[in-house]
């Protein structure tokens, strides 16, 4: 919490330096993100892929793996869900929508599993492989949207699919998009799997000490491969919901960057799946309110990226916060420093 407050304070300094009114900027930011039903809907829609992306990173962290591939996993999830969404006709909603979501999730899982399997079999750095897979996914989905799946109606030349069938659209109840409900369920499911099941214990064991886990009889390779698949599934689901619930189609280049924000979210949440929800909501609110802030007070919306970086800095370096707040070191305080395991996650 202190980190968030400090980040916002420093952001306020930046706004003031630029000669804008801090109070009107921040009140516009909050009103734009939670002022009325529409604003709330926007915030929740923005928060949904952030929560999924954050979970995709946080889950992999638990096994000591750094998943920078959320972007690619999200893209294939979004593209394939849209493909099923517009391609199937005359199917009832109870079949069509789950099927589209499932295909998107499966595409993401397969994409994530590539990195996990390679890591397990050949020791290839998952960081390198997932970054490369992001570029491959970008190209692949661009091609899908520009060639076989392109919307040929009218004079459309944009690389995008047709709109998905009504039977594949994710409903919105008033200000509450159903996709966000799924995100919350996914967060609790992740927590349950990690903390209350044998599989989750094995995942955390591999993350804590790979060699000890192997001696304890855990198949480290299987755990790494399946962890990356689960991470990919989460990101893919986030992409699928973006296509079926927000954009209504897949369009090349629209979701770029969305997958990387998951890293920020996961770190803000200190890789705790439940804490990913408020972290996603916070960033979602800032993104939803940024447009109104710019409109009413003239502050460039990119300020929220700066604020995010500052918050992340304070979360990452509790020493700075202690120093700024003049907190005394308590020798008995538990070490709350956030670590992701050894370097590249060897």
């Amino acid at each position, binding site marked *: 919490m202190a980190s968030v407050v400090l980040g916002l304070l420093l952001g306020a300094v930046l706004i003031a330096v630029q000669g804008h009114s801090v109070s009107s900027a921040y009140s516009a930011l909050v009103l734009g993100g939670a002022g009325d039903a529409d604003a709330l809907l926007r915030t929740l829609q923005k928060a949904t892929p952030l929560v999924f992306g954050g979970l995709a990173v946080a889950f992999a962290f638990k096994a000591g793996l750094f998943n920078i591939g959320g972007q690619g996993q999200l893209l294939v999830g979004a593209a394939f869900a849209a493909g099923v969404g517009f391609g199937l006709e005359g199917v009832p909603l109870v079949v069509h929508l789950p099927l589209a979501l499932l295909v998107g999730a499966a595409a993401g899982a397969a994409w994530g599993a590539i990195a996990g399997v390679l890591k397990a079999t050949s020791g290839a750095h998952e960081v390198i492989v997932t970054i490369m897979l992001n570029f491959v996914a970008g190209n692949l989905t661009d091609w899908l949207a520009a060639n076989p799946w392109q919307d040929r109606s009218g004079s459309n030349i944009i690389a995008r699919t047709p709109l998905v069938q009504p039977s594949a659209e994710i409903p919105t109840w008033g200000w509450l998009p159903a996709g966000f409900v799924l995100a919350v369920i996914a967060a609790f499911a992740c927590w349950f799997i990690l903390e209350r099941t044998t599989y989750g214990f094995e995942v955390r064991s591999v993350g804590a000490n790979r060699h000890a886990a192997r001696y304890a009889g855990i198949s480290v390779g299987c755990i790494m491969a399946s962890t990356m698949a689960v991470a990919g599934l989460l990101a893919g689901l986030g992409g699928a919901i973006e296509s079926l619930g927000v954009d209504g189609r897949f369009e090349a280049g629209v979701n770029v960057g969305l997958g990387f924000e998951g890293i920020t979210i996961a770190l803000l949440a200190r890789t705790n799946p439940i804490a990913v929800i408020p972290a996603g909501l916070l960033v979602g609110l800032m993104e939803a309110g940024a447009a109104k802030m710019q409109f009413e007070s003239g502050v460039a919306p*990119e300020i929220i990226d700066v604020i995010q970086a500052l918050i992340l800095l304070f979360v990452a370096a509790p020493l700075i916060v202690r120093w700024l707040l003049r907190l005394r070191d308590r020798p008995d305080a538990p070490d709350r420093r956030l670590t992701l395991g050894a370097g590249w996650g060897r």
Partner: protein
Amino acid sequence: MTAGAGPDLATASGVAGVRGWSPQRMWSVAGAVVLVACVWGFYAWDGAQTTAVLGGTVRAATLLVLGAMCGMIGERSGIVNIGIEGQFLMSAFTAFTVASMSGSLFLGVVAGVSTGLAMGWMLAAMSVGLRTDQIIAGTVLNIAALGLTSFFYDRGRSLGQPKYQSIELGPLADLPVVGTALFNRPPLTYLALVLVVVLHVLLLRSVWGMRTTAIGEHPGAAATVGIDVIRLRYWNVTLAGGLAGLGGAYLALESVGTFTRAMSGGRGFLALAVMIFGRRTPLGAYAAALFFGFTTALQGQFQLNDTFDIPAQFVGMLPFVVTIIVVAAAGLFGRMRDPAALGQPYEVR
């Protein structure tokens, strides 16, 4: 030491010593010979296009090798730097802005390198001084750079002068095959080439290089023989940032000639792949960078002429798919070992 693919490296590995030819080295040299033969063949077949592809290769490789060297100095000291992307972006921004305001490209380069040094110092302060998790520290740099450069980005600003132009190096530029690609280049490319060779010697042969390896492998042991681990890590990560800063200046003032939002476009991450690919040696990294640059240049060339009926997106995938295959294969045939203390903060006891 590994000499990978790339025509100009056949000579480099020969200089480093012929004694003790490991199978690995034999394969590298054999690969280099085959590559040179191929390039020569293509040159005889279509000189203009081969020259264009080689030129594009060197152009794309320069940025990557600068980033890779920044990463490798950090990693050899035990500090992971995934903030290269942010260092590129931030220094490209200041290099462009200063060059545009002052009208001097040189001042722009100075600003870019200074920004890189400052970013390097920030990374060092976070990961060495405050012992923040290094992956997070790098992520902070990346996000901060994207936010700050977008926030202060002035859409209307232009460089107001031509970007760095090529300088012919006398008769060398008239050599067949490599003449234009290597010896008719803008100044920062030459500087980068010199830095590759100098750093290679320094890292593998000098006292500083040995000490750097020592604090990355076993900082405790290094400290017992009198090396100030914290201090050397601070210096190394900060100075390495200057290399990324030069990369940013190269990107804005020599390669592109302007600044656009998020213009580094993932190449800071690609530089990490190049670094690991090149086994954390500058010459190895340059070979890897040339390979990446080659696929990038090939992609551009494919798009220009419609000789092959392949969708652009599939050609665009090529470098990344090849990287995955090579990284996986390299893992299968003999695993690479990271510096032993990589990623672990060092605390003086």
